[in-house]
């Protein structure tokens, strides 16, 4: 701003020349004001802390409030404090939060501002820009506080209706046509004794507690798992429709995962896209690789991975399919979501089919509705779907129905 030091030196000279004691008081006053305002401004701003509180994960379109807590930890009052946070535009308009306030000694204030998860993604919030200064305009200080917090906006989930899949369904558990063997290591509850139950299965402590014979229940030894393989290799997308097509592919993946998880299925995700949190799940040596698991927590983890996924120049989709094959259990369902079907892809899917996996191909492209794709997939023994609009997920009857495979599945 402006510097009074030259005048202070002049005052010293005048006071020393004329030996007027009173002038030294004025010198002390001016110099004291100058130095103490600097120390005040710097010291007060250093002890200001900002904390941000908001839900770290939201669904698309969800609106929420970000609560800010600004605290002055020193005994010096802050005459004015300028708070600024630049927000990512996909979350809010006009894309910033600004507020000027004052803080007394050891005082705390709270502010809120609205945000909305308008677009899928992984967004950094912060750090806060703080500015303050003295009351005379000698100095202004700026700093950053509050650190960076991250917000995850899950992708859109389109509720799936019945897709008219044949029995046995390529998704989920087998029907009761095949017996399921119980795994004695996977205890999952008790039930009342029925004639014919083995005495070795009796749960004696539960029986004593309930005064009725109780028998242990075990989970089946064989469960079917689903692996969603999402192609986010930018080279395999048409450049003109890259954004729309890749987002649609992610929406399809998220909707399928949510549907299957709701059916109590184990779902996993493998993709060759980039994860904004690099190295988050290097289980398969891939950017995003989540092995099939049950439960809502796993679903949220999967949706979080999809929220962060980006198209990238990475592994080819065929290579991805080959890489994950050894990691999947026998009988798992592989859902391949890709923007285009090619002969090598169909060959690879056929190999997977013959290896015992159940294969579903979803092509996210406007040309996916051709009957040639359907017939070809049918002849190779797996089903294929074409999705170009989100409505295609909701109203499958409008898209060509998938034809059942001509061969019986070897089970």
């Amino acid at each position, binding site marked *: *701003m*402006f*510097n*009074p*030091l*030259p*005048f*202070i*030196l*002049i*005052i*010293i000279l*005048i*006071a*020393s*020349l*004329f*030996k*007027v*004691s*009173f*002038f*030294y*008081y*004025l*010198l*002390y*006053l*001016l*110099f*004291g*004001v100058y*130095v*103490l*305002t600097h120390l*005040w401004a710097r010291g007060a701003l250093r002890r200001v802390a900002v904390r941000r509180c908001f839900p770290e994960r939201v669904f698309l379109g969800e609106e929420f409030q970000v609560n800010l807590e600004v605290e002055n930890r020193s005994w010096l*009052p802050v*005459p*004015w404090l*300028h708070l600024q946070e630049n927000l990512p535009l996909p979350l809010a308009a006009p894309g910033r939060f*600004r*507020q*000027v*306030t*004052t803080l*007394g000694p050891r*005082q*705390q*204030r*709270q*502010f*809120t*501002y*609205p945000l909305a998860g308008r677009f899928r993604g992984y967004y950094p919030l912060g750090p806060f820009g703080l500015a303050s200064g003295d*009351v*005379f*305009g000698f100095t202004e200080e700026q700093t950053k506080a509050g650190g960076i917090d991250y917000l995850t906006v899950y992708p859109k989930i389109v509720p799936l209706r019945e897709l008219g899949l044949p029995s046995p369904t390529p998704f989920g558990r087998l029907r009761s046509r095949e017996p399921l063997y119980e795994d004695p290591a996977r205890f999952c509850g008790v039930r009342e004794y029925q004639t014919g139950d083995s005495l070795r299965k009796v749960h004696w402590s539960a029986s004593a507690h309930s005064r009725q014979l109780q028998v242990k229940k075990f989970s089946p030894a064989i469960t079917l798992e689903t692996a969603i393989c999402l192609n986010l290799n930018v080279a395999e997308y048409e450049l003109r429709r890259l954004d729309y097509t890749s987002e649609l592919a992610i929406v399809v993946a998220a909707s399928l995962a949510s549907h299957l998880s709701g059916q109590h299925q184990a779902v996993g995700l493998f993709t060759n896209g980039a994860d904004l949190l690099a190295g988050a799940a290097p289980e398969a040596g891939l950017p995003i690789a989540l092995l099939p698991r049950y439960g809502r927590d796993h679903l949220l983890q999967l949706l979080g991975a999809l929220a962060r996924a980006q198209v990238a120049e990475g592994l080819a989709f065929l290579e991805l399919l080959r890489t994950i094959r050894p990691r999947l259990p026998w009988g798992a369902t592989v859902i391949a979501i890709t923007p285009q079907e090619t002969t090598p892809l169909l060959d690879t899917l056929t190999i997977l089919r013959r290896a015992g996996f159940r294969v579903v191909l979803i092509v996210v492209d406007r040309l996916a509705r051709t009957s040639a794709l359907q017939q070809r997939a049918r002849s190779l023994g797996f089903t294929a779907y074409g999705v170009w609009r989100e409505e295609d997920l909701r109203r499958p009857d409008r898209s060509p129905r998938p034809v059942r495979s001509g061969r019986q599945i070897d089970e």
Partner: protein
Amino acid sequence: MSKDQRPGEEPGPATASPAPFSRQWREGLEAPTPSPAPETAASPAAPEAPRRAPPRLAGCSGLLRDLLSPPQFAAEREVAPLGRAEGFLQPALLIATILFFLTGLINLGLALQPDWDTSLLLPLAAMTALIAYLYSRRLSSGTILPKEWLVLLLPLVLLARLTTYVNLGFPRLAADVGRWWQAPLSFFDGDFVISSLLLVLVWAVTFVSTQDLNRLRLQRGELPPPTDSPAYYMWLTGGGRQVDHTTPLRHLAGRFLLGGAILLFCSALAAIGVRQLLSAPALLELVTFRRPTLTAVYLNVLLYFLCGLLLLSHGQLTRLRTLWQVEETAVSPLVGRRWAPLVGGFLLLVLFLALLLPTAYSLTLADVVLTLVSIVMFIASLFLQLLFMLFALLLSPLFALFQQTPPTPPAIAPPRPVLPIAPPGAMPAWLEVGKSLLFWGFILGIVGYSVYALLTHRQGRLGQGAAGSLFARLRAWGQALLSLWRYLSGATRRAVRAASSAVVARLGLRPGAMGPRPRWLSLRRLGPRELIVYFYLSILERAGRLGYRRGPGQTPQEYSQTLQARLPEVQDDLWPLTAAFQEARYSRHDIGPQQASPARQHWQRLKTALQRRWRAARS
């Protein structure tokens, strides 16, 4: 939306932009120009009054016509509704500051010319400042329009001429009027000229300062019009308007500080009597800092600085509010409410601290510097003597080894510090000295910090100049001295280490033969079990120094056999001690003093035997 309240407090009123003021500005269709005011007719919504063409005077040339035609008052700025603080406090502070400055000038004038009648000059100056403020406040630009100034100043100047007759009386006025008629130049006497110049100065300073205060506020065209209005697109295509609100405050502050320096100088001249300075001895006394101390209090000077600082503070608040308004930032109303108490409290605190500091001194700077230098030299010489004595002490065994007497340190008495002698006075001498040291410490500290801050701040600009090169050279010297100190201290450490290694080698000791660093261990604190263990381990260590170390896998009994074979004289005591050690180390029952006491006796005998062996081996 923002909530800005303490828990339990009702939320305060939301801060809104100045309602009708900004809206009218936003709706104005006039293109924004910094200055001068546009001459085109404004739209009905614009606040400025339309300017009318001056009436033409028939038969006059252009220059004459311009001189004779009535003045065209400059386009007026719309004055937005002012708050109490801005509407009253700002002009009050500005006018007060200027009047306190004027008081200093008047005092100087009275010192030069005691007959000067200044009884009504200050009230007249106050009126002048007020009119200048109100006039300047309404102008949309700071252009100096001589005709307008003339029209507004002339009555005030004439009033300055006539107010002197309030004391002189009407008859004197009548006589002087007659004299003026006959000799018009007699109208302009010295007092009148000086008073007029002072009034013009007051007018000019108030005018310019008010323009600076105007520019701190929001200017036309800074805020965009409402987005649904046609003016918004014109504002967009016009490129908006960026106004500098910082430079006016900087100008205001510079003017305030410069005025303060001038005021101090004039007040000092007035205090010492300017006429006295016109002699050579007085001038010499002045420039050599040997004038006697003056203890007068200059209230107008203090009030000038206080009012000036308050005005700057208010200017800063105005500037910040404007910047926040342009940014469309929500501002808590508490900022404005707390501003004045914070400023007032801070100034009072600093004033209080300033009054505690010393302003007088009994010793000159030269005396203080001489004292400090002598103290430093005394301490340095003491340190050198101590160092020499230590070296002599360390080397005396060497000299004893070679059967020579060590050198004695030279008997040089360290120079005693030259302590200043305080002049006789009511206070004790030590207090006078202390006060002087404190005073000079503060002054030198202020000077040093100011020079350092200035050079650091301007290093970029003066980097090529003499001051910059001097600063860089001083810094380089300082760094060189620091490097030299580090080198010397490192070299000293290395030399000490080398000397100790040489001593060890000269005495024929093996590295590490001195054993581990002796630790202070109090045997009284050990229990019986720990004592027995300590006795045994102590024997192991002593035997180890003789070269009879216990092997890694050797049990205590195996080691006893080995040691006994080499030192038969220890047999009678070694076995009982070994047995006692095994009992103390591995048993679970209690070990009492009745077991520790015989073990101690064995240990002492073993220690004696091993020490005998050790001395025999050395010789």
